[in-house]
């Protein structure tokens, strides 16, 4: 009798491995397993892909916003509602301006002051536009820009009435002289 089981198996070691594996089939599975990326790698790849996707979307959004902002050269290019408002203001200003020009002007100083006022309003309008280009759409800038049109109209109307008044006064004085 042997001393113990350990001894028994030690003596019979050569005959222990009597199960025969399917070597080729198992190798094919191992080879396939080795060529597949590991789960950890798969997870990392998925995370990277999701991150890249989010970054790409954000990038496209930012680029789109920047391009939109860069293309803004008037209130009309922001949205349709503002486009309509601006267009009606421009029509009104042009009408009033034509009316103003159609009136005979003898006061050169008045014309010069008017042009200066209008230039100042142009500057305010462009500042508002620059603010929107740099920081995106904001209500305050839009209101200021629209306000410049209101002011233009009021200035031109006031000058028209001034011219008319002057003209009326001149006509009266002519009649008196006659």
């Amino acid at each position, binding site marked *: 009798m042997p001393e113990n089981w*350990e001894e028994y198996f030690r003596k019979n070691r050569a005959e222990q491995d009597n199960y025969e594996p399917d070597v080729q089939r198992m190798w094919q599975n*191992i080879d396939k397993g080795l060529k597949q990326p590991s789960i950890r790698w798969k997870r990392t790849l998925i995370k990277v892909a999701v991150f890249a996707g989010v970054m790409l979307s954000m990038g496209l959004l930012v680029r789109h916003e920047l391009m939109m902002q860069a293309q803004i050269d008037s209130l009309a290019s922001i949205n349709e509602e503002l486009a309509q408002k601006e267009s009606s203001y421009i029509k009104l200003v042009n009408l009033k301006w034509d009316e103003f020009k159609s009136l005979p002007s003898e006061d050169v100083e008045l014309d010069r002051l008017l042009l200066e006022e209008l230039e100042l309003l142009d500057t305010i309008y462009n500042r508002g536009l620059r603010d929107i280009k740099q920081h995106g759409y904001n209500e305050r800038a839009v209101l200021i820009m629209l306000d410049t049109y209101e002011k233009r109209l009021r200035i031109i109307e006031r000058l028209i009435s001034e011219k008319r008044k002057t003209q009326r006064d001149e006509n009266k004085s002519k009649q008196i002289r006659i």
Partner: protein
Amino acid sequence: MNKTFDLTEQLVQSCIHGDERARYELYQQFVKPMYNVAYRIVANQFDAEDVVQDAFIKAFKKIGSLKDNRAFASWLKQIVVNEAISLIRKTKKMHLLAEDIEQITDVEVKEVSDDIPIEKVMKKIQELPHGARIVFTLRAIEGYRFNEVSELTGQTVNNCKVQYHRARKILSSKLKTILYA
């Protein structure tokens, strides 16, 4: 130095450098003993195949971390044993020592006779309850010490000893019938 060791070392080195042929050579050299180690623990062909495949994949992926190329065989065997025990835990949801140890009838433990053919002994080992079979296989066949078996199975050393004793009792009882048949 032994020629087989030399060859294994060279193959391991080539594997580390990504040589696919060396990988296959190493596989051929170790597949049968590793399959048998796995079979003795999981006790069926399909689980043994899964264990060996997973163990080789893991080993080839981590071969760069092997500190001593000469230790490849024992390192690989350790991976196989770990994979096998982990598979048993997963599939059988088994606590290795949850089986009722008290149920064993008190059999006189006789040492095994050299005359009993190994195939018959191996067959009877496969019929042991999971916990007893695993502890007995690791200790008596694979040559691990009780503290190593305890680490591998996650059981206390005392529990492993109880399981080992239980396995011996059952085997003695079963083999007695063969001897006196």
